[in-house]
Structures are given as C-alpha cells and as structure tokens.
C-alpha cells in the first residue's frame, strides 16, 4: 500500500452523464437497488432570452459523478462513535462493518451524501475505492468502466500536477469542509461552487 493519498480525477468536459460508472460500481459491489456508492448528479440551468428579434439559448447541463471522496479530513471518521471508519495510510477511508453500530451519525457529516445505509444488515456502507482491485494493481471499477475515459485515479499530488487543483464545482459544497481527495477538469459550462444559477436536475435519482 502506498503512503500517498489516493484520489479520483473527473473530467467534467468529457463526461456524458451515461452512469456507466454508477452501474459498474453497483455490479462490482453487488449493491441493492437504492444503495448507491457512486451517483451521477446532473446540474442544469439557463433560459431562453430575447435579443432583438431573436431568442437566444443560455440553457446548459453537465454531470458530476460523486462517490466517497476519501477526504483528507474525513468528518465521518471523526464522528463515528465506535471508531469503525478508518483512514488508511494511502488515504482510502474504509468502514469496518463488524464495528459499525448503525447509528447513522456519519451520514449527517458527509458533504457528499456518500454514506449509504444498508437496511438489510443495519450497517453503513460506502465506496471503498475498490481496495481489493488496488491491491491487485487494477483500476477501480468506475474508472475502468467509463466509455468517455473521463475518470482517472492515483495519488492526489500526481493528479494535481497533471490536471490542476479544482476540487469543487456547483452543486458541490465547500471543499474546505473536509478537503476531498478529488480533482475536477472543468466543463465549458460548469459553474463555480456556490453558484445559484442552476439546480440539480435529477434529485429523485441521487
């Protein structure tokens, strides 16, 4: 295991919003309907505005795929009363199921809604960065599945050198809350964090 913080890279401009990553994740982890370790949030906005005799469209939409972002300051791990959420040396945040008491306190602290409660087992679950695949030197299922090659993963420092340090766009919250291990490549239409110009277009899906 490396001792560098592992992270995801998401190229928002390349993402088509197809949700292959979400489905590959569900398949790999055998998740029930409703338990989504990775969700694709659609941010939509704009309007038609009149300019002289013409109507001009400012309509836009882009997708942001979100899972547990294995935050550098994981608020879930701090909140967990039974210390069942641990951060490994490589930054991957894992839930040790046998210690989880199912109190769901972590759920209130996650800025990304990444914690998914399993009613069957009474335990909290979430993305484990495909820790077993990492061990075998394989890509995480979501990264490997992306038909647009919009995802990458690796040590956070390396991803930042390669892609920059954008850690949030609308509708994601302030990254200073938890310092998520993620780098985004901007979409031509992506709005800055905190923008109120659009809204989540697929609330019932995520």
């Amino acid at each position, binding site marked *: 295991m490396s001792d560098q913080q592992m992270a995801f890279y998401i190229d928002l401009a390349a993402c088509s919003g197809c949700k292959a990553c979400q489905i590959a994740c569900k398949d790999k982890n055998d998740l029930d309907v409703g338990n989504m370790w990775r969700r694709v*949030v659609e941010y939509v906005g704009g309007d038609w505005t009149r300019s002289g005799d013409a109507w001009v469209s400012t309509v836009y939409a882009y997708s942001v795929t*979100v899972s547990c972002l294995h935050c550098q300051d994981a*608020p879930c*791990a*701090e*909140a*967990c*009363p*039974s*210390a*069942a959420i641990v951060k490994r040396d490589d930054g991957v945040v894992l839930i040790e199921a046998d*210690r*989880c*008491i*199912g*109190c*769901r*306190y972590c759920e*209130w*602290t*996650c*800025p*990304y*809604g990444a914690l998914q*409660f*399993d*009613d069957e*087992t*009474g*335990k*909290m679950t979430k993305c484990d960065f495909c820790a077993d695949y990492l061990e075998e030197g394989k890509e995480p299922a979501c990264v490997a599945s992306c038909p647009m090659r919009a995802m990458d993963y690796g040590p956070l420092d390396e991803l930042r050198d390669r892609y920059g340090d954008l850690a949030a766009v609308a*509708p*994601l*919250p302030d990254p200073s*809350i938890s310092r998520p291990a993620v780098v985004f490549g901007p979409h031509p239409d992506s709005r800055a964090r905190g923008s*109120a110009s659009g809204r*989540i277009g697929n609330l019932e899906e*995520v």
Partner: protein
Amino acid sequence: MGLHDWSLIIFTILGQMSVGVFLILGIVHTIAVRRHPIEEVERLTDRALLAIGPVLVLGFIASLGHLGSPVNAYLSLLNVAESWLSREILFGTLFAATGALFALLQWRKIGSFALRRVVALVAAALGIAFVVTMALIYMLPLQPAWNLWVTPLTFIVTSLLTGALAIGVAFVASYAYERKREGADHAALASLLYDSLRGLVLAAVVLVGVQLVTVSLHVTVLSAGETSAAVDSAAALTGDFGVVFGLRLTLAFVGAAIFGFLIYRSTIWATSQRTIGTLVGGAFGLVLVSEVLGRYLFYAASVPITI
C-alpha cells in the same frame, strides 16, 4: 420520518428531562430546607429522585431503536477521543451511575449530609455535561439549522422546563400518597407543596418565555442565513411544518403560562387537591407534548448542505 427519528426524539427528551429533574430537585431541596423541616422536604423530594432512574433508563432503551446494529451498542465508547456521540454516551452513563449512587445514599440516608451533597453536585455536573455533549453532536457545519447557539440553549431549557413540571407532578403524587398514610402531618406538608409548586410554575413561566423567544429567533436567524440550506430550513418550519410549529408554540404557552397562572392562584386559594393535581398534570402534559413536537421539528425541518 421513520422509527429511527422517533427513538432519537424519545431519547433526547427523556435524557434531558432526567437531568432537569435532578438539577431542579437539588435547587428545590436547598431552598425548601431553609423554611421547612428537612424530614418534611425529603418526604416529597426523595420519591421524585427515585423516579428519575426509570425515566433515564427508558430513554437509553429508546436510543437503541435508532441503531441499525444495537448488539454493537457497547462499542459506542470507542471514539471518546474524537466523537461527540461517544462523549454523550460517556457522560450519560456517568450521570446515570453517579445519580443512582446518590439516590441510594439519599434514600437509605447513608453517609453524612455533606458527603451526599458532594455526590449530588458531581452527578449534577455530569448531567450538565450530558446535555451539553448531546447538543454538540448536532453542531455540524453541514447542518445550518443545528449549528447555532440555539441548539445547546433549547436543550438546556427543555431539560429545566420539562424537569420543573415533572417535579410538580411527582410532588402532587407524593403528597397524595402521604395523605393516605395514617398519622402524617398534612398541613405542614401541604404548605410545603404549595410553596414548591409556586416556585416551580414561576420557573416554568420564565423558561417557556426563553424557549418561545429562542424558537422565534431561530427562524429569523435561519431566514437570514448565508446558505440555501439555512433558508430552506426556516421555510420548512413556517411552511410545510407550519401547523406543527404553531401547535408547538401554543401548547408551550398554554401549558406553562396559562396553566402555570392557574396553579399559582389555586395554591394561594388552597383549591381542592384534585383540581391542583389536574392542573399540574395538565401543565406537564401540554409542555411535554410541545417539547416532543419541537424535537420532531428539530429533526424533520433541518435541511443539510449536501447533495
């Protein structure tokens, strides 16, 4: 709003009420022994003290209902170093243990008065820590409706308000029991009961005033909040949950202020026992329902900053 949240509502209210009863009982005892013989005072206070235990235990049992894996509940102390939830359980357990020790000493009159007083003060401090850590659990940056001074203040006021009126009920019940016993001096006990009830309802009126002002300010502060989650929480309180919110405020006012006024007058006019008992029970019942509704809103109308 599932069963999950109801167990938290029951746990937080009963936990806070237990602490409130313990604290106010201490104050009542301290004031009452100046004007009444200590044996008389303890004929009323000791039984109220013993009632705290079952209430607190009931609260802890209810709290198990919000765990997906209640068999693992014993692990909840593992993260005392970082988690406010662990700390809450720690202080709750210590309050229960010290409170039970005090109740035993006091009931059996073991040890000197000074020793018992020290144990009671330690238990009171642990009880306050229990309520404060319970509030700190909710002071989360992602929950603007909770992350305000309002949370600890309302938790403390809920403790004292429900505590004061619960003691009223316990005293009335204790008095009724004592009256049935042969040879007891009813007149002295009645004067003590009336003195105590007047003090308790005065406290309840002040506390309900603080509660109503706090709850109203909460909506104002949230409406002016920087995040849309804060504004949405305020809108939920006055919009979707407007009826429950209005009912909560009305019941608190009627229970503490109007019933309080009637109790105060009755104790001066020495109205019938039955009437006073009904009024005290009514005041407690109305305020308890109001506080349960308030706690329901606390959970149901909090809009988090998340996606």
